């Protein structure tokens, strides 16, 4: 499906849209050009920040397909992050294939797993579904903790990337940038398709959606599988950048919590929400590390923000701004 035709007949709309394209294009060009400016102060820090930011944009945007559009919250989505990481990492360790090549494979594998998991758990609705995603996460954790072939709970180390040290972050930066742009584009295409419309319908009222002729089960499974793809991809890239695989890096519930939190802060079910949420939360995290240092208080801050947003701005930044008619055109991607 192409972008929906404008039926409201507001004349200002097309012009605002094209200026939005220009602004976003410039932002993207800056992001692409950034690694060429080696003279930047704190060059490596800036690139690392970019890597982390793009990774979270990709993960949150993907989560939003099932958690936002379809309204089925997954608290175990980081299983795909971990499985993607492990699959690519093991292919490097045992077959010597570069994770930059196998990341796509990892994504596809996660997509297939998503279909399998969806077939089982989409018999459940609401809370029971959420519970099953937590159970999935814990099951996978037990499995990896006890699987000696991949080092059990101690993990396994991977060979270092064969790049010159001064450029070592650059390939990871671009890989994450491509994933972020890809996942946001995927979400955009879904939001503007009949499929996306169906997902929103079933999120509102599943019985009515079914009566209207939507194959809700197939839609939900498709949404879940698509939302697994880029999570697997960035998992593979992230594992390589750490050059270490260990269950506690990937399979802790805090990773899933962050995806949920970023999507909710930005605006669940909107295309721009996850991007805004990722930027805001990473800024807050960087700030709180600077102010308080890394401590257990960080997860307290995460919990407080989650509660506060749910109680006072359940629509998130993008949703709340839209409700008041104050959403800037450059962020109106729906």
């Amino acid at each position, binding site marked *: 499906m192409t972008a929906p035709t404008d039926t409201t007949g507001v004349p200002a709309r097309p012009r605002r849209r094209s200026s939005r394209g220009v602004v976003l294009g410039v932002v993207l060009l800056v992001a692409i050009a950034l690694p060429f400016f080696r003279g930047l102060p704190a060059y490596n820090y800036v690139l690392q920040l970019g890597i982390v930011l793009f990774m979270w944009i990709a993960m949150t945007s993907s989560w939003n397909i099932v958690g936002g559009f379809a*309204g089925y919250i997954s608290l175990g989505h980081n299983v795909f992050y971990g499985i993607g990481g492990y699959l690519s990492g093991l292919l490097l360790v045992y077959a010597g294939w570069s994770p930059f090549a196998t990341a796509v494979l990892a994504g596809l594998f996660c997509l297939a797993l998503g279909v399998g998991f969806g077939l089982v758990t989409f018999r459940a609705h609401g*809370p029971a579904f959420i519970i*099953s995603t937590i159970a999935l996460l*814990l099951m996978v954790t037990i499995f990896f903790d006890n699987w000696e072939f991949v080092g059990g709970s101690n993990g396994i180390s991977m060979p270092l990337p064969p790049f010159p040290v001064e450029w070592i972050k650059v390939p990871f930066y671009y890989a994450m940038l491509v994933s972020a742009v890809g996942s946001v584009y995927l979400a955009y295409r879904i939001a503007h398709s009949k499929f996306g419309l169906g997902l929103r319908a079933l999120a509102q009222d599943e*019985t009515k959606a079914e009566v209207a002729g939507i194959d809700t089960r197939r839609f939900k499974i498709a949404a879940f599988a698509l939302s697994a793809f880029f999570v697997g991809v960035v998992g593979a890239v992230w594992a390589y950048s750490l050059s270490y695989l260990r269950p506690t890096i990937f399979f802790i519930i805090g990773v899933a919590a962050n995806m*949920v939190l970023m999507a909710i802060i930005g605006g669940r079910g909107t295309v721009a929400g996850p991007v805004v949420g990722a930027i805001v939360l990473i800024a807050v995290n960087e700030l709180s590390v600077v102010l308080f240092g890394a401590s*257990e208080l960080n997860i307290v801050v995460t919990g407080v923000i989650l509660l506060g947003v749910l109680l006072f701005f359940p629509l998130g930044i993008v949703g709340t701004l839209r409700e008041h008619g104050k959403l800037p055109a450059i962020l109106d991607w729906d």
Partner: protein
Amino acid sequence: MNELQVLILGLLLGGVYALMASGLTLLFGVMRVVNLAHAAFIVVGAYGAYFAFELLGLDPFVALGLIMPAFFLLGMGLYRLLFPRIEGSPRFGEMTVLMTFGLALIIEGLLAFYFTGIFRSVDPPYATQAFILGPVFVPRAQLYASLTSVVLLMGLWAFLRMTRTGYAIRATMQNRVAAQVVGVNVRRISTVSFGIGMALAGAAGTLVSFIFTFFPARHWQWIAILLALIVLGGMGSLKGAVVGAVVLAVASSFVSDRIGPTWAPMTFFAALFVTLMVRPRGLFGKEIDR
């Protein structure tokens, strides 16, 4: 170990799991709240018992008498603070999951900040003793915890069957709107139920403090187990929680004995998935809300 021994240990464990799950299933039954922070409160209860023992020298069974009322009040306050605001929300069930998820993170973070991640357990004299009955042994701590749990659950059952408030709670569980129509103050009943659920969490925490080791992040493992067994039993059903707890605890004891203790939790999650596939509403549950 011989079968009888494994069975005994499983049954004793099941008694404690039943108490841990009872508050969770009660809250779901009355208010459709899935309290992901339930196990975090159990951990808080365990810390309460730990410090009562270490600092005041109180036996956990004495501390129980202090912790339950304190948790009852805490629960009522918490309900008033958090839930009336989202009561009309069209996705109430899901909102409660996310809110209590945030609450669990806050509790875990605060516990870890103040008490560090050290593994703790309360160590009263009976914690390491056992009764020897012919070919089998019965650990005293587990036996006492399990018996206390049975007494508390019977008390809960009697309260729900024999008092006016109990009637009102059961009416609200069956049909919230109809209960309101016949004059039940649903807001008040919800507040009281939340208090009771929390008191049960506090009691469970006191009991697990001397039969398990605990640390701030322990609650994720517990909540997953508890959720699995209330899904098996049927969410909102107390009978289901008890049956689910006993069945799965015995099953996990056999898995632990035959395959290995690290695989024991798998029993719960496997049961969860099988339940969702075969009979999503569980053994004794009503159709789960969409």
